């Protein structure tokens, strides 16, 4: 079963937003794109039951947004409270200011920061580095598919990607559909004799462990 990973994009500049959308669509992501914080919050609201973005890329400064009812801080706070398993990158031209950093990290303590002055290419490279993780004999390719390196077999499911990019953290899954996908991924790992194993911590919490590091074999 395939399920493309979603990415939330919040960027007030239409041209940059299009660039980001094209980039992620080319990587087989499903982009949830917004030019304003209130639109981003509605996208999250409308998708929270069916899907949860693996990644959010948030522009901190939204002065060109079509509406200013809500701020990027509101979106970050919602992500932190309700989508803790979503990786978040925040970029700003004022990222050097400790006051801006403090505001961002109070809204979302796990957010990664990026300097907007380095340009869109730098941001995209950073995102690719965050997503294209390797864990033992598994590799995430283009942020959307998990590859078992010895066999080159692919596993296409956003929850599998989520587990790999969060390694070694515990990830909490929020629906039966998601946990079924995670267990299928666990079975896939066993069938491929992967060095990586799925560990259940109960209450829909799972993490990946590398077998010979964790004394599992």
């Amino acid at each position, binding site marked *: 079963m395939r399920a493309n990973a979603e990415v939330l994009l919040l960027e007030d500049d239409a041209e940059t937003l299009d660039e980001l959308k094209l980039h992620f669509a080319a990587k087989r992501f499903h982009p949830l794109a917004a030019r304003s*914080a209130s639109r981003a919050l509605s996208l999250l609201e409308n998708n929270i039951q069916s899907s949860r973005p693996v990644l959010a890329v948030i522009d*901190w*400064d*939204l*002065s060109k947004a079509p509406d200013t009812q809500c*701020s*990027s*801080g*509101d979106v*970050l*706070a919602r*992500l*932190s*409270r309700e989508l*803790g398993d979503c990786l978040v990158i925040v970029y700003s031209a*004022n990222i050097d200011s*400790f*006051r801006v*950093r*403090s*505001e961002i*990290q*109070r*809204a*979302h*303590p*796990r957010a990664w920061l990026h300097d907007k002055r380095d340009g869109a290419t730098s941001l995209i490279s950073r995102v690719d580095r965050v997503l294209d993780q390797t864990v033992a004999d598994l590799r995430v390719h283009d942020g959307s598919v998990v590859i078992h390196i010895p066999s080159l077999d692919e596993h296409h499911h956003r929850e599998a990607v989520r587990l790999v990019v969060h390694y*070694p*953290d*515990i990830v909490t899954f929020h629906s039966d559909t998601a946990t079924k996908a995670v267990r299928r991924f666990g079975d896939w790992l066993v069938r491929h004799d992967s060095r990586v194993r799925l560990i259940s*911590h109960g209450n829909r919490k799972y993490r990946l462990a590398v077998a010979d590091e*964790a*004394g599992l074999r």
Partner: protein
Amino acid sequence: MAVASRHASALGVFAPETGRSIVVVSRDGETAVALRERTEPSVAVIRDVRPDEIAAGIAACLPFPWMVVNDLAGECCILERTLRRRPVLCCWRAPVPPGLPRHVREYSVFSEVATRVEQALRARVAGLQLAPHDGVQLSDGPRIASPRLDALVAQHPHAFDLPRSVFAPAARALSARGIPARIVQDRSRGGVVLVGTSA
């Protein structure tokens, strides 16, 4: 420019979460920002709170904070109550007011806090070390989710100035897994410590 979330209580820094948390109390957030630059969120989350948000910041750490850094000089009843009841590592802007438990460390410059956090995260005792996110693990074994063991390992070789009974759940976790370590009252070190029992 974006403004901070209008509802302070909705900020992610107050989202209840299990896992290792460092509550940093300051008026301007500078200490928290500096500490965040040195600390991977997968190892410990920095909760940057203001003086009037201390209670909310502490309540969000389930079951209790791993460490508190108080960048304000002077007394603080809420912090004192927490430090007297829970095994929480603590760095306090000098001078430390009288009456706090003896395990509270005084600091004058940020580098002392940074060093303390780094040492605590790297601490090892009886083969135990901190696991990512929370809990402890043997180098070749499974993770043990015990916030009290997490605190004892991080505090090593120093002691907690608390009753030994505070650590009863940690003692049970050690015993259940047959880990060769004991939690003891060590007067020479000023409180409760974790020690290895193997030869």
